[in-house]
């Protein structure tokens, strides 16, 4: 690393503080080190230790000099790992402060999964597009296309961009993305206050009678509290407007329309802050535009910077987790049907992290007006949270998010991607009419087979006919069921087979509604269901914590935890009695549970002097596992960092060997050129890397259900 300023020496490697100051810092530093280098990770860790820092402070703390530091910061800001605040001084000079931002780091943490899923869903080109967008933070289509070497791919790339924007994986970058939320909210409060005061002065008595000014701003005789409330509401409104800012999106689409009539304005006023308005880019783009004309920008504005939506990814990830849970709770086929349900509404479902909850907190903390320099004393009212939950729960059952069995059948008949065939579905639900006797079982089965084969033939003809009509579909033996159903889809009710399938689907959906611990689905009226995402999000983290407890501490720990939860407050002897375990074992387990913040101790004094000798100690669950969840999620993060760190270490230890095999003349001829011992060494290195990655991915999938859930 480079030299130092003012005595601070740049450490030769990532310092210990990056690891110890917080688990999330550690994880993200390790990840940043892998993607953008050690210095960037170091800067990130320095920023993590403070709320905000100016360039000078940062340079002093880190010891990295101006130009290098600036380069690093620009990279980090581009990736969304650092955000900045611009403060205007009294003398017109502006100060810029930098803060760390986790969003970008999360994207990098999940890059493999995002790319993998996009490849699976759309294809290789889409995957490379999204990968490049993540690695650069954000891109305009124009500059992406411009960098292409093979111009023939342009159309495909554009289509890829279009598909990804359509499916909300790529969204336009907003100004908000480059500022800390609290800072944006602060400016909202400022402007709200200004607006209130201005309007308030204009507000006269005459307005009361017939004036057209907003009565909201009538402040005469109003208490300070009320005024503050109004300003806060106004600020929240402004903030939400900024957050759901659609100007970029409009521009993205509007340009598309304009392009059709060959009218692209070289738009200099991109939604992005001036920091990234690289002049070169625009110039290049202009050239590009001229050279390729309308063909290049068929549908989307090439000038709007796009970034990957992590929220979109979280929706996908949540659904995958839910399907996996349902598979373990109910069964394979039900899980597949649930998958269809979730995929159907994935795009339109609620976001995993609600901005509203966060804003409500900001509102509660905000201070309004002069003299209230610190944060407000009223704090966050839990009832606000409850109200929000109720609102979100209602939103979950909005129009469009409801469905019935027919919808699922339709979905199945339309597409083949759900890897569920009719054969899988038939017979999965116990039927009263079925004979339970095993001897008859075979017979019944063959009867069913006969039925099916007859069905096959019949529909085969139909398929043949319709093949001509719709030449897109090619009949394939393997996925026959789906396509048949589509052909028969028009007369759903007449076909007895379809009736049976429909009934089966309905039964599976119903199975999803009766789970006691996790309400996968809720049936609003007979045959109508919706997915209660909000409810699920509060149920799943607790469920997940318990499953982790069970896996890591053993079944008996889960037993005791559940016992304490059910009895609310219980002392050791009674626990031992109700879980039928030895007291000594119980004590050991409780000690572990207490250590991890899952169980709390409460002293119950029996004498007036509260003598410890006579008192009893009872145990209870930490409220809603708050503390346990926090500790656990941090443990998981830390361990992910640790795993990556170890992998890095293994690489360093075997650096000579790894360098050797990456040489041009060695590559591809390892067996000839390497010694036997070296080959063995290579094998163990690769092995350990595999293990490391598997661990990393497992930890990540365990943690994500806790990390991104609603805060209560």
């Amino acid at each position, binding site marked *: 690393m480079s030299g130092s300023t003012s005595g601070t020496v740049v450490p030769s490697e990532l310092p210990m503080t990056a690891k*110890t100051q917080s*688990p999330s810092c550690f994880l993200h530093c390790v990840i940043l080190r892998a993607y953008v280098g050690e210095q960037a990770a170091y800067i990130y860790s320095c920023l993590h230790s403070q709320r905000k820092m100016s360039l000078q402070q940062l340079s002093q703390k880190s010891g990295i000099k101006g130009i290098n530091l600036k380069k690093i910061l620009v990279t980090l800001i581009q990736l969304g790992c650092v955000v900045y605040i611009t403060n205007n001084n009294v003398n017109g000079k502006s100060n810029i402060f930098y803060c760390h931002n986790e969003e970008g780091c999360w994207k990098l943490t999940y890059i493999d999964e995002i790319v993998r899923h996009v490849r*699976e869903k759309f294809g290789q080109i889409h995957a490379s597009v999204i990968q490049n967008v993540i690695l650069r933070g954000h891109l305009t289509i124009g500059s992406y296309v411009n960098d292409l070497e093979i111009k023939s791919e342009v159309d495909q790339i554009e289509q890829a961009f279009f598909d990804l924007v359509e499916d909300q994986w790529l969204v336009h970058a907003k100004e908000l993305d480059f500022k800390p939320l609290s800072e944006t909210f602060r400016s909202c409060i400022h402007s709200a206050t200004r607006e209130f005061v201005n309007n308030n002065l204009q507000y006269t008595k005459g307005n009361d009678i017939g004036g057209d000014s907003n009565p909201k701003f009538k402040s005469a005789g109003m208490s300070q509290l009320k005024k503050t409330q109004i300003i806060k509401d106004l600020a929240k409104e402004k903030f939400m407007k900024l957050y759901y800012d659609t100007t970029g999106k409009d521009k993205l689409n509007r340009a598309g329309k304009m392009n059709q009539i060959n009218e692209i304005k070289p738009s200099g006023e991109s939604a992005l802050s001036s920091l990234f308005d690289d002049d070169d880019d625009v110039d290049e783009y202009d050239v590009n535009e001229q050279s390729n004309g309308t063909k290049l920008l068929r549908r989307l504005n090439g000038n709007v910077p796009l970034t990957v939506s992590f929220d979109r990814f979280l929706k996908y990830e949540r659904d995958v*987790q839910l*399907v*996996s*849970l349902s*598979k*373990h*709770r*109910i*069964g*394979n*086929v*039900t899980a597949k049907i649930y998958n269809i349900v979730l995929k159907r509404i994935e795009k339109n479902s609620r976001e995993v992290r609600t901005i509203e909850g966060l804003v409500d907190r900001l509102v509660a903390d905000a201070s309004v007006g002069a003299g209230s320099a610190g944060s407000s004393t009223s704090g966050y009212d839990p009832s606000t949270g409850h109200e929000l939950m109720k609102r979100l729960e209602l939103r979950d059952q909005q129009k469009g998010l409801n469905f019935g069995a027919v919808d699922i059948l339709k979905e199945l008949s339309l597409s083949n991607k759900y*890897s569920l065939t009719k054969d*899988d579905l038939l017979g*999965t*639900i*116990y039927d009263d009419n079925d004979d*339970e006797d*095993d001897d008859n*079982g075979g017979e019944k089965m063959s009867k069913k087979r006969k039925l099916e084969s007859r069905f096959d033939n019949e529909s085969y003809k139909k398929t043949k006919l319709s093949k001509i009509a719709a030449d897109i579909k090619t009949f394939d033996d393997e996925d026959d069921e789906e396509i048949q159903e589509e052909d028969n889809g028009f007369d759903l009710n007449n076909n007895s087979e379809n009736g049976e399938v429909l009934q089966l689907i309905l*039964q599976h959906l*119903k*199975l999803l509604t*009766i789970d*006691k*611990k996790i309400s996968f689905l809720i049936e609003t009226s007979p045959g109508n269901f919706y997915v209660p995402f909000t409810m699920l999000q509060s149920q799943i983290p607790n469920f*997940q914590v*318990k499953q*982790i407890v069970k*896996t*890591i501490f053993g079944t008996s720990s889960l*037993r005791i935890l*559940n*016992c304490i939860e*059910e009895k609310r407050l219980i002392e050791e002897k009674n626990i031992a009695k*109700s*879980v*039928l*375990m*030895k007291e000594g074992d119980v004590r050991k387990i409780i000690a572990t549970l207490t250590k*991890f913040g899952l169980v709390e101790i409460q002293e119950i004094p029996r004498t007036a002097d509260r003598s410890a000798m006579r008192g009893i100690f009872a145990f209870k669950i930490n409220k809603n596992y708050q503390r346990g969840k926090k*500790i*656990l999620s*941090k*443990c*998981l993060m*830390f*361990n992910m960092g*640790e795993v990556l760190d170890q992998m890095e270490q293994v690489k360093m230890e075997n650096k000579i060997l790894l360098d050797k095999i990456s040489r041009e003349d060695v590559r591809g001829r390892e067996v000839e050129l390497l010694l036997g011992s070296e080959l063995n060494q290579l094998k163990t290195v690769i*092995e350990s890397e595999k*293990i490391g990655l*598997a*661990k990393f991915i*497992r*930890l990540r*999938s*365990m943690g994500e259900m806790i990390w991104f859930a609603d805060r209560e």
Partner: protein
Amino acid sequence: MSGKVLIDDMSPSAKKMHHIMVTNGKSSYTQNELLSLLKFENINELMENAQVLLNKGLLKILESDGDGDSKEKQILFAAISEQEAKKVSNMTADEAIVYSHVEAAGREGIWTKTIKAKTNLHQHIVLRCLKSLESQSYIKSVKSVKHPTRKIYMLYHLTPSIDVTGGPWFTDSELDTDFIDSLLIVIWKFVAQKTFPKCFKKRGLIPNGLKQYSYSSQLLSNMGTLLPTLNDVNEFIISSGITTVELTLSDVKSLCDVLEFDEKIENTGGSYKATWQSVLEAGGGKIEGEDLFAPLDDEIFNVNDNYRVMDTLVADNGESNGNNNNTESRVYLDSWITL
């Protein structure tokens, strides 16, 4: 011989009184009851006879707490059988006192220190008496679950009460975890068989090559017609005869509770339902032709997949090292805490 002497010495009326009291079956009598039963003319006659019997050790006087309307204490008379009286009459005075206390403690037993305090005898004497009584098989020492360190005595022929033994879960005052665990497995399997039809035949494969086979939600939730209730579980245990230990309904309930704590079964409106996860973990619910340890390409890792995780985490070894529970490679949790 001495027994005969005991009775022979007495007047016929006293003999008759003792005989009636023993044969009538009641353990104790009030004064009035005795008067009407024995048709004595007056209290004095009763008292005389009672005194004779008392002297011989064939009668004891108890105090009742006063039942029902009258809160006053009443004097009760209880007959002592001849053998019993003979036993006591053969003891030394100290032994008799100790014996009477042990007898009074009944099935709960009595702690040596309590005997000492109650009798006001020296510890050595108490111990000597206990020793001699024990050697004659009049009393026995039992271990208490509540107070494992105390030496507790009770009459030889009595079975210790549940408080002392700790109920059916204790064998020799040790919690019999093996017994409990095997009962838990039996109950779970019973419930699971009722919840998931035909999932336990053919080495846990789901029948007919299906990928899932469940009861419909109505059968599982509404009526609970198929799911076993607590009574069903109890009956099953009794009828199967898997244990000689007598289990009450509440014992079975506590077993079911434990299974619920283990998240192996769930209580749905009074009847029990096994969780699918527990079936999977027990090796049931397999899909025909599916490799349990095959890599899951299109699925995310779930903690609950633990049962199908291979130890080395590397699938391509392919060898059967699946059941080796090496926790080292799986423990992800503690390092941050111990940092």
